[in-house]
């Protein structure tokens, strides 16, 4: 099985490397990033460099959060649309192994992207003579976990629905939407309106709990993000975020496998 997983992973890595859409998408993101970052370099002073590095790390994480989920989305939609999965599953290669390789290859590319970003931040920090803070590494690892959660969520959605609808679903039905709705319902309840609000509250709570969290640590590491100083407790929290990402990925992998088995692959 391991051999099959590796064979399929190698093939998916070739897919990512040769996919023009993905490369184009990456270049556009890079161009947007450069346009927003380069002008600020011109006005940089020694004192503002630390601030710039912090913003840079945060911005790069934001872009990676868009690029990485596209890896899984494109791999699933492209292979299902090309209908070549039937050539894989009519050989002694279970669909779960093929799907596992899809997830694994996307996670490996995500890891490479986040590592490159962390190295870039470290090199820039050394070049500008800004003391390297462990917070940069913390943010890079946390960003990687968030990307993996988003990647697995979108991959599972793309297995069930059209990729465009999957993206729209993620954009409009995410944890922030339902968090906002929860507040609206709570505000309405406080203003004295009761009719039907209990059902709305339960519905909002349920969906909010079910949706994957992109920022599981949230306010707990607000101070760290500002100062970039990391304590032992913060690393523990990061470990919890890692476990959350692993469990979420396993859940969405299982859901995708279930959907794939039920799909008409002819």
């Amino acid at each position: 099985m391991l051999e099959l997983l590796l064979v399929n992973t190698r093939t998916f890595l070739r897919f990512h490397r040769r996919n023009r859409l993905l490369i184009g998408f990456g270049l556009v993101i890079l161009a947007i990033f450069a346009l927003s970052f380069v002008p600020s370099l011109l006005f940089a002073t020694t004192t503002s460099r630390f601030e710039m590095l912090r913003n840079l790390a945060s911005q790069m994480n934001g872009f990676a959060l868009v690029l990485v989920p596209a890896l899984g989305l494109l791999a699933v939609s492209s292979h299902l649309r090309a209908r070549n999965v039937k050539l894989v599953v009519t050989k002694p290669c279970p669909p779960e192994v093929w799907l596992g390789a899809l997830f694994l290859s996307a996670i490996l590319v995500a890891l490479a992207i986040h590592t490159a970003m962390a190295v870039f931040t470290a090199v820039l920090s050394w070049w500008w003579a800004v003391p390297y803070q462990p917070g940069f590494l913390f943010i890079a690892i946390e960003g990687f976990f968030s990307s993996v959660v988003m990647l697995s969520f979108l991959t599972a959605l793309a297995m069930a629905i059209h990729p465009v609808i999957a993206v729209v679903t993620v954009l409009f039905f995410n944890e922030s939407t339902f968090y906002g709705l929860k507040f609206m319902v709570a505000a309405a309840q406080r203003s004295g309106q009761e009719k039907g609000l209990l059902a709305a509250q339960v519905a909002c709570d349920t969906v909010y709990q079910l949706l994957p969290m992109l920022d599981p640590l949230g306010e707990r590491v607000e101070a760290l993000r500002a100062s970039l100083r990391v304590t032992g407790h913060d690393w523990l929290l990061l470990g919890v975020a890692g476990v959350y990402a692993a469990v979420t990925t396993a859940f969405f992998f299982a859901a995708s496998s279930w959907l794939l088995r039920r799909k008409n692959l002819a």
Partner: protein
Amino acid sequence: MIVEVDGLGVSFRTGFWRKRLQALQGVSLSVREGDFLALLGPNGAGKSTLMYCMLGLMRPSAGSVRMFGEPPRLGGPMYARMAYLPEEPHYHDYLTVDESVSYYGALHRRRVEPRTVQDLLERFGLAEFKHLRLSKCSKGMKQKVGIIQCLLNEPRLVFLDEPMRGLDPVTVKLFRDVLLEMNAGGATIVMNSHILSEVEQVATRVAILNGGRLVAEQDVQSLRQVESGAYTVEIQDGSGLPDHFDKLGEAAGTSVGRVGAERLYDFFDSARSRDVRIVSCQRQRATLEESFLRVLKEERPNA
């Protein structure tokens, strides 16, 4: 039995109102070891759907399929003894020719020697294109890649969906020989094709589908053993042609022609009176095409 299909039914829901479409209905069929079975039928008869159900790619709404004695489960060990050539070139277009052949070989959990891949590529005339991506290959070249991936694991059961589509005559001949060789070696082949002349040359049994139902399942010989009501007669050239002799051609001092069964005795009398020597006289057998059309006509007299 290597494949057993019992009371198979497949229905789809299509369109906005999710109208039900019955693609297969109560199809029961058995494929014996060593058979070369051709699935025939007009467009939309359900041939590909039946093949997809046999392969486990489609879940039937009724009935069952068993391969090697068990129901097909995608990616299971039974597929190590099988090969499948799809109708459309649904391959991994981002891989090169040799990468795709090696990949499909590796999926069989057996190491395919580079020499074997090279030999197959050379045999099918793809060696010089081995570094070309499949997205840049012609349909015929992709079909050849499909054929090669069917030969990598020495399969005992082969499913071919319109295998000759897009192939040049030389490759058709080569592939036909390969199939006959595999079949002679004990491999069971299930083929779905519209080219009846091709089927006639290779298949030992045919199953004819029409409107989602199995309307005939016979050996090719017995299906063709229907008299077409005429005889093929070869006569030595002499003083004129006998009556009722419909000349078709000439060969080395003889003429070959057709004589209607109802006029055979009159023809003999005429030949005797003209002193024409009859070299051979054989009952004409219906071609597979004629037999196929007759079966369909019997099934739908108004068609």
